[in-house]
Each structure stands twice: as C-alpha cells, then as structure tokens.
C-alpha cells in the first residue's frame, strides 16, 4: 500500500513524524480518511478520537483536541493543541 509522510505537531514538539498509509480524523464536516495521493486539502478538526495506520499495518489510536489538518502534495501535517496516543 502506498504511504505518505505524516507530521503531527503540537506545542510540545512533533509527537509523530513518519510514514503511514491511512489517517482517520473527524473534521468539522464529518469523519474523513486521508490516503496517499489525496488532493491538497485543508480542514479544521473537532476534538475527537483519531486512528492512523502505519506502514507495517499497525493501528494506532489517539485523541486530538481539535486543530487543523493540512494535506499537501506529498506530506500531511496535523496541527493540534494536544495529540495523545491512547494505549490499547
């Protein structure tokens, strides 16, 4: 599966930076999944759970307190006040 580079940036630094295949978040208009090759796109997020799938297929859940998601040509940036991975 094709991957893209995701950076999750919070005031405490980049909490995640690496390759992933899919990212599920909740935008103001509803849930959405970002995959590789998505068109350039910007949306604001609402406080919610989100999930991301890494290159090797592992699934990671996290909570995000809002913020904004920017999908660029070859990289995706999620900016939030806090982004915490939840332990399974």
């Amino acid at each position: 599966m094709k991957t893209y580079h995701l950076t999750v940036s919070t005031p405490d630094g980049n909490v995640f930076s690496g390759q992933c295949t899919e990212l599920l978040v909740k935008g103001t208009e509803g849930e959405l999944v970002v995959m590789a090759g998505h068109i350039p796109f910007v949306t604001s997020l609402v406080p919610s759970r989100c999930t991301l799938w890494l290159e090797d297929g592992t699934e990671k859940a996290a909570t995000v307190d809002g913020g904004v998601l920017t999908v660029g040509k070859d990289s995706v940036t999620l900016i939030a006040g806090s982004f915490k991975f939840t332990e399974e």
Partner: protein
Amino acid sequence: MAGNTKALRSRIKSVTSTLQLTKAMELVASSKIRRANEGMQKGREYARALESTVSLLRGDGDCLKSPYMQKRETGRTRIVIIAGDRGLAGGYNANVFRLAKEFPEAEFIPVGKRACERFGKEINSSERFSFADALALSGTLCRDFAEGEFDRLGIIWTKYVSVMTQEATVTWLLPFEKNESGTKSLVTFEPDCLTVLNNITREYVAGMMTVLARESFASEVAARRMAMDSAGKNARQMIDDLQLEYNRARQGAITQEITEIVAGSGE
C-alpha cells in the same frame, strides 16, 4: 591599624558570600538551560508548521473577508509582554521594558512575574506558561479583536540568538498580512477557507504565544547564566584585591610593632 584590617576582613567575608550566591544561581540557570532549549526547539517545529498552514490560508482571496484580516487605521494596540519571573538576569527584563516604552499608547497584557508587577495585573509565571493558559488568553483576545475592541495585537518577547546574545523583539500577530507572493492556491478548503481561518486563529495566537514564551524563557536562563558568570568573575577579582590590601595592612602593623619594640629596647 587593627580597625582597618577588621573592616577589610568583614568586606572579604561579605564578597565571599555574594560569590557563593552568584555561583549557586549560575548552576541553577545552567541546569535549566538544557530543558529550556529543548522546549524552544520543539516550539519552533510547531511554529513552523503553524506558520506554513496560516500562510496558505492568507494567500486565499476568500479569507480577506475574515475579521482577522481587517486592517483598521485607528491603531488601538494590545501587546502581550513576556518578561521573566525573577531578576538578576542581566539586561533581560530591562530590554523588554525598554522596547515596551516605544508603544506608549498600547495596552499591555503581562506574562511573567516581573511584567505583572510592572503592569499591575494578577501574578502569573512565564516559566510555567502553558498552552492551556495561552488558549484561555487568546480566546478573549481573538473575540475582542473580531468585535473591533482593538486593532492590532503584538507580542514582545526575547529572541534567543545564541548563548551570548538575546534580543528583545516585537512581533505582530493580528491582523494577518495578506500573502501576496502565493499564486492562487489549488488547495481545497473544507467547509471553506474563511471558516477554517476563523477556527484556527485562536489556536494560532495561543500557539505563537506559547512558543515565544518558551523561547523567551530560554533567553532568560541564558542571560542569567551570563550575568552570574561575570558577577562571579568580578567577585573573585574583588576578593583578590581586598586580600592583597588586607595582607599589606597586616604586614604593616607587624612591621610597626617591631619597630616600636626595637626603638623601646634601644636605650
């Protein structure tokens, strides 16, 4: 003579205790430097990401309608001023306040105990200024700005140039400058550019405040370390000089006493 040596001895003692104090403060500052620098580096990463997203939004024509992009001419200014919690950091706090004097008509929102004392608001700490504090503050600021209570939001902070140099700087956060360079972006906004910009502004202002407060704190500890280092050097120099003077006075007194004894027994 005896009185003189006694005075010298007590001066040496007092300078020695000053030296201990400066040494202790230097050590405290040194131990904080690493943590402060880490915070600053992380903050810079976040600021870069925030900046690049906001510049994307500023480039879009629809966003000109946003209240946060309205340039008003009346020039009522609010400035968030970040100073230290403590003194004895060389010119750190003084430089910040000197820069603040350049905006006599502005309303100041202080962060840090020194700034709070000066501008008479309830005390808050700049060392422990968190994103949550910033978010609460920026909520009020953004609302007031959108309602036209004031026309320009700035922030006075101290830029960390190197361990030796720190610079008090003013940065304007609101209103956003229009991004002229960017050609019409091909980016899709959901629901639309204006909403996204309005949503992100509060977070942007809070984020920038947190990041700049962290950088200022890094500057503060670096400034304090330098100040304490040179104060320690001066104290050591002073002790050396006083010690020399004391030894001379002591030697002089002994010589005089011997002369007196010799003169007395000469008969």
